[in-house]
């Protein structure tokens, strides 16, 4: 895999615009293009592509393969796999980058097998060393990292949110748009969506928040999250959780941070009653600073934390809210 390498980014939309993660992937693809001399392509599957293709170009795409069809109003596994595979035939990319979201984690393995190639899931780093693409990802519950390369092309990968900077959009950038036809008719879809339900939007805010307050098993019940919500409101933060409280129904599933949940990279991550198991840290280890509040001084979370408080959160968090209010002159 030497010389010119085309990197294809499969765009995901949020509120009708390329998502932040998609822009980050375009930034990563531009880095790779800088090293390899290759081009950056984007796949745009949407019910309306107007104005979005130019956004992708402004963020770094040289060419946008656009398929406009009502079917792409939201993610549907079969139609996306079929369309992405067709675009890969046209674009002949060396690498395909997909955001590590629930949709991306569904799409990437299927697309890879459809193309007869392998896939690296949930990557934190992608580099081009010695003429080879190398993908680094957490494994073993976040306790280890592996770097993999591919024997087959294209290399398909999902990349976690916040690992790369989204370049500032350049509206002067020029690129080409290649419209394509949707390869599958609606009647060809074997999996039918009967019903979709959206939780309150709290989850979506997590990736964007500068401060995240997260609770774990140590909260000992759903009431703890009410306290964390008060702290978050005082700080202008978003609220997240480790897996156990979500499994126990103490908070919405969309709050889950970790290997099987969201990845956040805030400036400040306040972990309350979270032991710091590898699978949770895989979702928040990229925070600039972690504050850990835990009754157990030996908890693993303190190994990752910059500041630690040993104590009962039920006393500490209200005191912290009061101190923050004082500071903010409230």
């Amino acid at each position: 895999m030497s010389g010119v390498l085309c990197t294809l980014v499969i765009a995901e939309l949020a509120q009708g615009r390329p998502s932040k993660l998609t822009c980050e992937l375009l930034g990563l693809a531009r880095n790779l293009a800088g090293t390899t001399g290759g081009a950056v392509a984007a796949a745009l599957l949407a019910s309306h592509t107007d104005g979005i293709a130019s956004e992708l170009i402004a963020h770094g795409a040289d060419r946008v393969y656009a398929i406009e069809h009502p079917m792409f109003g939201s993610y549907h596994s079969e139609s996306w796999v079929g369309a992405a595979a067709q675009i890969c035939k046209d674009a002949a990319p060396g690498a395909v980058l997909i955001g590590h979201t629930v949709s991306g984690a569904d799409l990437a393995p299927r697309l890879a097998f459809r193309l007869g190639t392998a896939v690296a899931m949930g990557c934190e780093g992608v580099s081009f060393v010695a003429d080879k693409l190398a993908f680094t990802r957490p494994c073993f519950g976040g306790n280890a990292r592996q770097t993999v390369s591919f024997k087959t092309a294209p290399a398909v990968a999902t990349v976690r949110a916040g690992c790369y900077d989204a370049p500032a959009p350049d509206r002067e950038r020029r690129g080409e748009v290649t419209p394509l036809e949707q390869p599958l008719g609606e009647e060809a879809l074997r999996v039918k969506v009967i019903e979709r339900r959206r939780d309150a939007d709290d989850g979506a805010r997590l990736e964007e928040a500068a401060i995240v307050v997260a609770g774990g098993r140590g909260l000992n019940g759903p009431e703890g999250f009410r306290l964390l919500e008060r702290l978050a409101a005082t700080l202008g933060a978003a609220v997240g959780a480790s897996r156990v409280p979500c499994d126990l129904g103490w908070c919405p599933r969309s709050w889950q941070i970790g290997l099987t949940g969201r990845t956040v990279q805030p400036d400040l991550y306040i972990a309350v009653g979270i032991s710091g198991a590898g699978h949770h840290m895989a979702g928040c280890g990229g925070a600039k600073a972690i504050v850990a509040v835990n009754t157990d001084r030996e908890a693993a979370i303190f190994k990752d934390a910059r500041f630690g408080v040993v104590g009962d959160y039920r006393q500490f968090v209200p005191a912290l809210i009061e101190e923050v209010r004082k500071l903010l002159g409230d």
Partner: protein
Amino acid sequence: MRIVVCVKQVPDPEAAFSMFRIDEQAKKVIPAPGLQLVMSPFDEQAVEAALRIRERHPEAKIAVISMGPETSRNAIKHGLAMGADEGVLLSDAAFEDADSYSTACTLARAIVKLGGCDLVLTGRQAADWDAGVVGAGVGELLGLPVITFAKDVQVENGIVRVERVLDDGAEIVEASLPALVTVSNELGAARTPNLRETMRAARKPITVWKAADLGLGANEAGAAGARCVIERLFAPVKNNRCEFVAGSVREQAAGLVERLREAKLI
């Protein structure tokens, strides 16, 4: 109705990671001697999903299938003790050091050799490599509709109805059988085998197949069939310099706010 559940045996993921050693030379994670090997938890939930379906469809037969070393027989036995009907162990030196691609090829071939099935269930990802690829891969190779991240799986009149987890909610989807579904932790806890089922399980059949039994060529299984190469395996770097804020609760709160303000974090 025939249900096949693909399971993997892994070193107990609940064990502290200090029980593991990363061998950077061999690019392997080595569990401490004596560390328990268990069925990967999401796969256990896939077996649970199959058993719940059989509660409504008593005629359903559940096969548990695993590719791995001879010890994987114990993961299959666990599935049988939970209530599955039969086991298939795919064990051969030729399967060693497989990646997700060659693992999926081997499992898919075994499912075909079983005579196919109505429903394939797998966990969303295995608790060792955390990739979440094999399930969808088996579905692609078998040309089945694939539904990922299930929190509820029901079968009625030849149709599988799945509630699946989304980033910001959930959706209900349906597909005609045969189909493949990967199961997520939201399904809820898997049952613990009781003594009676464990005793019965001892009499349930476990078939063992090797690469040749599956008609797999030299380049299709294990390391030879892999399409990924592990270049490095290492431990993430930890800064390990936590500053503990001491004092009374009030002093701790004031001290933390002071430090966060100094660090311009708030």
